[in-house]
C-alpha cells in the first residue's frame, strides 16, 4: 500500500509531520515541519553530521539542496491531493550566504504555477533573520494527482 494512501486511510494525509516520519532520508537529516494555517514552514535543527565545511561551520550544499527540495515537495502535498510523492524533474539551487550548521535553518516554498501534471515551485531558506535569505531554489515537479492518470515517469 502506498504510504500516502495509508496516511489518508488513517485520516492523517494532511499531517506533514507524520509524512516526514515515513521518509528515512527526512529522519536522517532531522527535518521538521510546522503547519501554521495554510503556511508550511520547514525547520532544520543544527546537527554536526550535516556539516560540509567544518571551518565555519556550514551545512553541506547537498543538505541545503535537500531542504529546499523537500520544502517544495511538502508545500505541493499540502496544496494538492497526491497519489504518491511528487517527483523532482529539475531544481536549481542558489547559495547566497553561508548556511551555518550551528544555527536553525527555516524554509518556505511558493507554488508559482501548478498545471495538471507539472508544478513550478520556488523556495527560500533563512536562519536568524527572515529577510536574509541564505539559499533559494526553483524547480519543476511531476505530480501524481489522485483524480488523474498517473504520469508515466
Amino acid at each position, binding site marked *: 500500500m502506498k504510504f500516502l494512501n495509508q496516511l489518508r486511510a488513517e485520516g492523517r494525509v494532511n499531517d506533514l509531520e507524520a509524512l516526514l516520519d515515513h521518509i528515512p*532520508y527526512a529522519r536522517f537529516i532531522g527535518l521538521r515541519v510546522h503547519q501554521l494555517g495554510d503556511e508550511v514552514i520547514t525547520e532544520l535543527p543544527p546537527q554536526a553530521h550535516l556539516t560540509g565545511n*567544518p571551518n565555519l561551520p556550514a*551545512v553541506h550544499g547537498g*543538505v541545503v*539542496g535537500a531542504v529546499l527540495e523537500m520544502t517544495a515537495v511538502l508545500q505541493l502535498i499540502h496544496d494538492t491531493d497526491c497519489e504518491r510523492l511528487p517527483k*523532482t524533474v*529539475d531544481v536549481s539551487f542558489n547559495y547566497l550566504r553561508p548556511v551555518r550548521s550551528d544555527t536553525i535553518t527555516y524554509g518556505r516554498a511558493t507554488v508559482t504555477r501548478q498545471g495538471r501534471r507539472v508544478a513550478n515551485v520556488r523556495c527560500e531558506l533563512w536562519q536568524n533573520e527572515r529577510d536574509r535569505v541564505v539559499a533559494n531554489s526553483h524547480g519543476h515537479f511531476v505530480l501524481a494527482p489522485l483524480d488523474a492518470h498517473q504520469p508515466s515517469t
Partner: protein
Amino acid sequence: MPSDGAHPVTGEAIADHLTNIPHAAALGLRFHDVTEHYVEISLPYDEKLVGDPDTGVIHGGAITALLDNAAGFAVRVPGEEAEPIAIATLDLRIDYMGPATPGREVIARATCFKRTRSITFVRGVAYHDSPDDPIATCTATFMTGTPNSTRPLTGRGGVRPAEGTG
C-alpha cells in the same frame, strides 16, 4: 577541510578530504576515480537515505550532495599541485533523469569545462553503470579565490566558503 596548504587533486587527497567532511562521512562518500579529465566519487546504498518508502529509491538530496562534492573536487586541476584556494558554490542545477536503483551504489563524475580567474564551470553526471545512462546530471558554478582575497566568510554578503564541499 583546511583552507591552507597545497591540495593536489589525487585519489589519496580526495579520499582523505572526504573523511574530513562530516556530512560526506555520514553519507559514506568514497573516492572512486580521478583522471586528467574528471573526478569520480561514489555513494553506497543505505536504507537511511531512502526518499520514497514505496520504492526504496534514495532521496535526491543524497544525489545532490554526491554531485556537489564531486563538482567541487573538479574545480582544481586533477593531479596538479595546487595553490591554496577558497571555493564557494554559486549555484547548482540538478536534472533528474531517472531513479537510482535500490541497493546499488551511485557514482558521480564531474568535469571542469572552464576555469576563469574567479569563476569555474563544472558539469557532472550520476550513474550506476555508464555516464551515458544517467540518473541525474548537474551544472555547477563556483567562485574561486585565494583564502586571503576571499570576502570575510561570516560577514554580511560574504560568499559561502565551500572549499570544494559545495
